[in-house]
């Protein structure tokens, strides 16, 4: 116990009495230490970045909307009143009332549909990003860490998946399913989308693997899993998170595009992309039925892109 306190003190003094510090470092791990300062630096930068603040507020707002749509409107998104149909134009005076944004072709409140549509987009976006990050990180780390034929094989598999046009592949998969739930869409997009993260993770791992502290940990006989999870993963996390956040916006756009093409979520689901597709028929007479959900898609994608951009700028030491 007394040893530990001394060790902690030594550790706190940078560049002092190397021999004692060296022992401590292998035990507590230099990686989390380094990561912590990187993250706190990034946080310091982010708090002062207006783009980050605006996008963070928007994202929180959208998340709340996705989880508790009832907070925003009492109108059901599926309640159709044909008397009102799409000729009910937006009524900008009645902010947040049921008829605020007008009615669609079947007389459903566009405001309610927009509020309830958030859930589908956000679930797909977040779900695909999580799935892709997990798959991509594992494959990338294994390929980068073990190298050799494992790397060759996994890299070739990555190349094969990269060769499949993303949108086309998703169209083909989803077109085969008659009942397209959120989970089917997530799995289809994740199946095709993991390559980007895998490449980033592989690159990061190869760089980190050659760094002195990993070589030192190996020399001291640390196990493979310990090196992977204590030393490599914490340092590879930053670039992966950056790519994942930016990709999230892209997946939301992809979901909307697929819904628009008629192979997104099923017809009964409330989704922005689906509403845009249905609004298409009335583009000339009632453009608001198409424009309002379109704008929602764009705002959501923009929020995540700005967020990812700000995080990248904060985490990339080169830009400092």
């Amino acid at each position, binding site marked *: 116990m007394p040893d530990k306190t001394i060790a902690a003190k030594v550790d706190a003094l940078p560049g002092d009495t190397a021999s004692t510090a060296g022992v401590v470092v292998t035990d507590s791990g230099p990686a989390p230490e380094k990561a912590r300062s990187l993250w706190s630096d990034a946080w310091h930068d982010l708090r002062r970045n207006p783009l980050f603040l605006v996008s963070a507020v928007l994202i929180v707002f959208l998340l709340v909307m996705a989880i508790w749509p009832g907070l925003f409107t009492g109108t059901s998104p599926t309640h159709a009143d044909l008397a009102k149909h799409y000729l009910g134009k937006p009524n900008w005076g009645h902010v947040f009332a049921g008829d605020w944004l007008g009615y669609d072709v079947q007389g459903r409140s566009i405001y309610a549909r927009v509020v309830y549509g958030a859930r589908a987009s956000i679930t797909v976006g977040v779900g695909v990003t999580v799935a892709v990050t997990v798959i991509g990180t594992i494959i990338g780390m294994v390929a980068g860490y073990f190298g050799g034929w494992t790397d060759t094989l996994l890299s070739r598999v990555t190349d094969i998946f990269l060769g499949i046009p993303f*949108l*086309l592949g998703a169209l083909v998969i989803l077109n085969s399913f008659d009942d397209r739930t959120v989970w089917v869409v997530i799995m289809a997009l994740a199946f095709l989308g993991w390559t980007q993260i895998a490449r980033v993770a592989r690159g990061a791992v190869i760089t980190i693997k050659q760094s002195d502290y990993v070589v030192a940990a190996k020399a001291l006989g640390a196990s493979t899993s310990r090196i992977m999870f204590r030393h490599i993963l914490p340092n590879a996390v930053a670039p992966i998170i950056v790519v994942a956040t930016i990709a999230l916006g892209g997946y939301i*756009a992809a979901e909307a595009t697929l819904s628009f093409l008629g192979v997104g979520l099923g017809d009964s689901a409330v989704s922005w992309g689906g509403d845009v597709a249905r609004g*298409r028929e009335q583009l000339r007479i009632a453009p608001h039925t198409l424009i309002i959900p*379109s704008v929602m898609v764009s705002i959501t994608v923009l929020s995540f892109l700005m967020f990812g951009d700000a995080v990248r700028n904060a985490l990339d030491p080169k830009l400092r």
Partner: protein
Amino acid sequence: MGRYVARRLLQMIPVFIGSTLIIFCMMYALPGDPVRAMMGDQAYDPSVVASIKKDLGLDQPLLQQYVHYMTGLLHGDFGTQIASQRPISDVIADAFPVTIRLTVFAFTFVTLVGIGLGVIAGLRPDTLRDRGLLTLTLVLVSMPSFVLGFLLQYLLAFKWSVTTPTVTDSTNFSQLALPAIVLGSLSLAYVARLTRTSIAENLRSDYMRTAIAKGLPRRRVIGVHLLRNSLIPVVTFLGIELGSLMTGAIVTEGIFNVRGIGVEIYEALTRREGATVVGIASLMVLIYLAASLIVDLLYAVLDPRIRYA
């Protein structure tokens, strides 16, 4: 160099087979049935369906079907469309030039405007015009092409009648302009951002300082030293984008009713016609692979530090 090209070509073979095999499997192994799709909602006789399937070879094991299909493809035989009974190669021959025209148009637009905007912003990083451009590109990236497509279609065609809402003649470049801009908007945003970052980074480099210290005129400092270096990553990015523009055509062609491979593949999909889908998809994979090889070679030509053995 020749050795490298040969090795890359050899490596492309398994990737091509892998990618097309996956597409083939997705098309045929997943639920969904072309013969039933052809019959639509009408009542059908299972034995008729079975015999049609047998004729089409759809009752054989999947891998055998794939080998059979690819053998045909290598001989230039793409198969026949079930619904129209036309040879698929004819369908592609009709539709492909349309998509090529659209893609080349979009590509030219992306290259000229994207690089132009990127240079303008990158030369004065962190000024108002730079931030303005970055914001504009973010907005463009956040608009899925169908959103931008409808927005422009509504404004330009319906509201202001500047252009036609749909393309009736794909050789008429004034009609193709709007779809090309919509198709290219996402790539444009990326190219502008990449150019901007690259220019801003190189602007601070030591060799730029040397170029100024040599007393070169500003025109030469920027035109020769800055651009020559900054555009290397942009050129390679553009090569890869050529492939994604082609896939993006599925959406754009649909919005503006351009009769290209995008519309063909989409219609074939709704009819669940595997042969057409896999045929066109294989072409796209091939174009993507060729583009990435060309990009790698171009990279070596542009940057003398890169040498392939």
